């Protein structure tokens, strides 16, 4: 059994042997299939490797990707995607949990760095409202999930078309607008979210330490998952 990670490495190596024309065709196919995050990674990488091997063999006979896989790469990729099995849920849960821990870590570290400044200007540290904070965090998670979905969707639209330069500009513009919107939403929710539930005061270093702890867990978990 060859793991998905090994397949990706082998794929990166072998892709260099493709002709520029075939590389364009295959490259789009590869990104498009890898962007389907709900599909089994192992199965996706296996079929991608098969297609790459096939292309390389065909190249020796001077056949182009278009001659082999048809003139409509998107339709071909969609057909493959329809037949690929879904990733098992138990593989998805750790993946998502890890991302949530990372996001919480980043948020805590940013807050933690902000607090000494707060103290510097001699303002009292505001009390911590766990319920409000949890709601705020969930809102940003929702927005990030939506943003990821939207970025993937836009990325898919940039594939399989000739005019890459224009597509790329539109793509980055969309991302820029998305980031602006995110900042606006987080500032607004922070300002207008009512402070509800119990509250308590805390030492200034608590968010920083817990944030670093979260990022540490995220990092170690990732390292453990790789081996």
């Amino acid at each position, binding site marked *: 059994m*060859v793991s998905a990670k090994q397949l990706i490495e082998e794929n990166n190596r072998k892709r260099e042997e493709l002709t520029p024309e075939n590389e364009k065709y295959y490259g789009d196919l590869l990104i498009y299939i890898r962007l389907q995050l709900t599909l089994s990674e192992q199965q996706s990488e296996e079929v991608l490797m098969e297609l790459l*091997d*096939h292309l390389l063999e*065909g190249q020796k006979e001077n056949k182009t990707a278009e001659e082999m896989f048809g003139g409509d790469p998107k339709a071909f990729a969609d057909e*493959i995607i329809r037949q690929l099995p879904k990733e098992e849920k138990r593989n998805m849960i750790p993946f998502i949990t890890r991302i949530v821990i990372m996001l919480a870590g980043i948020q805590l570290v940013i807050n933690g760095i902000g607090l000494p400044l707060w103290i510097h200007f001699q303002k009292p540290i505001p009390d911590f409202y766990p319920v409000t904070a949890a709601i705020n965090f969930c809102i940003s998670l929702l927005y990030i999930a939506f943003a990821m979905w939207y970025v993937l969707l836009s990325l898919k639209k940039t594939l399989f078309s000739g005019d890459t330069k224009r597509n790329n500009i539109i793509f980055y513009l969309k991302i820029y607008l998305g980031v602006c919107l995110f900042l606006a939403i987080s500032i607004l929710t922070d300002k207008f979210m009512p402070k509800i539930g119990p509250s308590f005061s805390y030492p200034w270093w608590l968010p920083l330490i817990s944030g670093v702890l979260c990022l540490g867990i995220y990092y170690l978990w990732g390292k453990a998952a790789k081996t």
Partner: protein
Amino acid sequence: MSRSQLLKGILDGCVLAVIEKEPVYGYILSKKLQETGLLDISEGTLYPVLLRLQKNGWIRGEMRPSDTGPSRKYYELTETGKAALDEITAEWQQISEPVNLLLKGRNSDGIRETAN
């Protein structure tokens, strides 16, 4: 059975029959199909079929390092795949014999009709 379903069944049968003889990987499989004279089965149709057959549990694919170095995904028939192939073969024989008879006999009948 619609036309596309019929073709699908036949395609499955052809792919299964090649795999039954010996475990093969995609490229060899497409070469073998083309050598048989089935030129219409392009690579573009083959890989979705292979994925579907795996989903059905009719074939099993395994990534193995090959003698020449790179890993290849070799396919072999499962027990259910063997049963499915038997069924497809039986159905195909039921259809193909009468159809052949009709279509082959078409010319001579036509001649007879014009002679009458």
